[in-house]
């Protein structure tokens, strides 16, 4: 179980997996804080690319009537 819990979603490449393994061992709160910030920056770069173009129109047109 512990081994399984360490496993991360395989959405990325192999190199990302290696990164995750190193991260798990990284000590220190500051180090961790910086790592999280770097990760978030990379992620936000990606999000800028995949976020719906015309996001406002997308939000306005997303209507879901008749649930449950």
């Amino acid at each position, binding site marked *: *179980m512990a081994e*399984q*819990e360490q*496993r*991360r*979603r*395989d*959405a*990325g490449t192999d190199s*990302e997996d290696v990164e*995750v393994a190193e991260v798990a061992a990284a000590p220190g709160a500051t180090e961790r804080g910086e790592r*999280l910030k770097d*990760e*978030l920056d990379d*992620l*936000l770069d*990606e*999000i800028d690319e*995949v*976020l*719906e173009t015309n*996001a*406002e129109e*997308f*939000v*306005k*047109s*997303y*209507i*879901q*009537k*008749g*649930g*449950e």
Partner: protein
Amino acid sequence: MAVPKTLGIETEFGIVHRGVDEPNPISASSLLINAYLSRLAAPGSGPGAPRVGWDFVDESPSVDVRGFTPLDAMAPEIETHLVNAVLTNGARYYVDHAHPELSTPECADALSVVLQDRAAEMILVESMEAANEVLPDDQELVVYKNNSDGKGNSYGCHENYLMDRSTPFGRIVQHATTHFVTRQVFTGAGKVGCELPFRNRFDVPFQITQRADFFEEEVGLETTLKRPIVNTRDEPHADPLRYRRLHVIVGDANMCEVATFLKVGSTALVLAMVEEDALDPNLAVVDPVRALQAVSWDVELGATLELADGRRATAVEVQWEILAAARRYLDDHGDEMVGGPVAHQVVQRWEDVLSALESDPESLAGQVDWITKRRVVDGFRDRHGLAHDDLRLAALDLQYHDLRPDRSLFARLGAETLVDADDARRATAEPPEDTRAYFRGRCLARWPDRIVAANWDSMVFDVAGESLRRVPMMEPRRGTAEHVATLLDTCETVDELIERLAT
């Protein structure tokens, strides 16, 4: 006395038909599911071409556990004409109102639910692919695993737990409510804005759950209007003299596997404790409807709730008390009724998550959805200097739940997984081995042409030279691999199966 907690999740998905002027969500949902079924039925696609319809004969969603049907309550309707299929993994895949919905097969523990929930996502992804193959190039179906459109319309992710019929319903209501109000701190999927009537959408920039804004009553039969925290639908899909099924409508659909695991694992333990009367009767939240919203809107986790004995406690503090009781329950009664060894993993994770909520909530990114989502929303807002009511933040919220692998924000966040992707892929076709879903799924895979209809508690077979034969399955823990694998492996035909079942 506690009975084994047989569990399952039913998820309604948001659906968008892009590229058409006046999209019809009902036909879009039908197209989505039919495209998937057609792909399964195509030559060379392996076993299981389930064109078997759902059997409604035993369905009675308007029966109320309180023994009456309130005149002002609107009973849920069953729409029998829409696509409605049973899959070889024992799941039900259908159009519910205006959404595609997938009910997992019956599971015996929380980890099995996580596996089936992941399999359900894979089925929806494959359905999108199949549908988009047959649609014109300028059209696309997109599915979202969320619970709200941000405009006051909500759709559910319902949980189901098998319970002992003899447990007083009032006791269930009291303790389940306390848990539902406070478990939001780890079950919430996060939401940009609020949808409470008469409030502006961005009065609340970000809240913990998708669903809390939609609940108006403490107890009731409704699921679409005046939603109650505890739903009273009395439809056990099992021996009604022994069991009730608690139909939980208050939760969010989770993307994080850890959140799904804790949501169903902790709730199964709470309900077993209710059956054993092992919870402190004073552990009750005063005015739970208001408390539900207060907890959801309190991302700092500092708000205190008034309890029945006059104390005030935060949601996390109440959760610590429930967790302590769950540990005592496992010591006193063992794990047999609550998922076996998995129950111990549940309480360990429960403790880890509560500790982190107190000391370092951000560390739960990848385990708890609202924290995972908020980190991205805050980061995006700061990077671009956006106001909190900028609709791009609401777009980010929606796209977190987008199930398209190339568009899903969640898929990019490196969330922790509890189940193996290959196991989940197998679970899209193969049933759990430890519930009656095994019998249902295996029969469907082997003899799809000889099964006329199926539902949770029975199957109807077309037997040679006879009228149709209904096989009842009133015990959710019978019909497992242990009970019937040899029988199914050694029967050549349905006729032989029916004959041997009768002896």
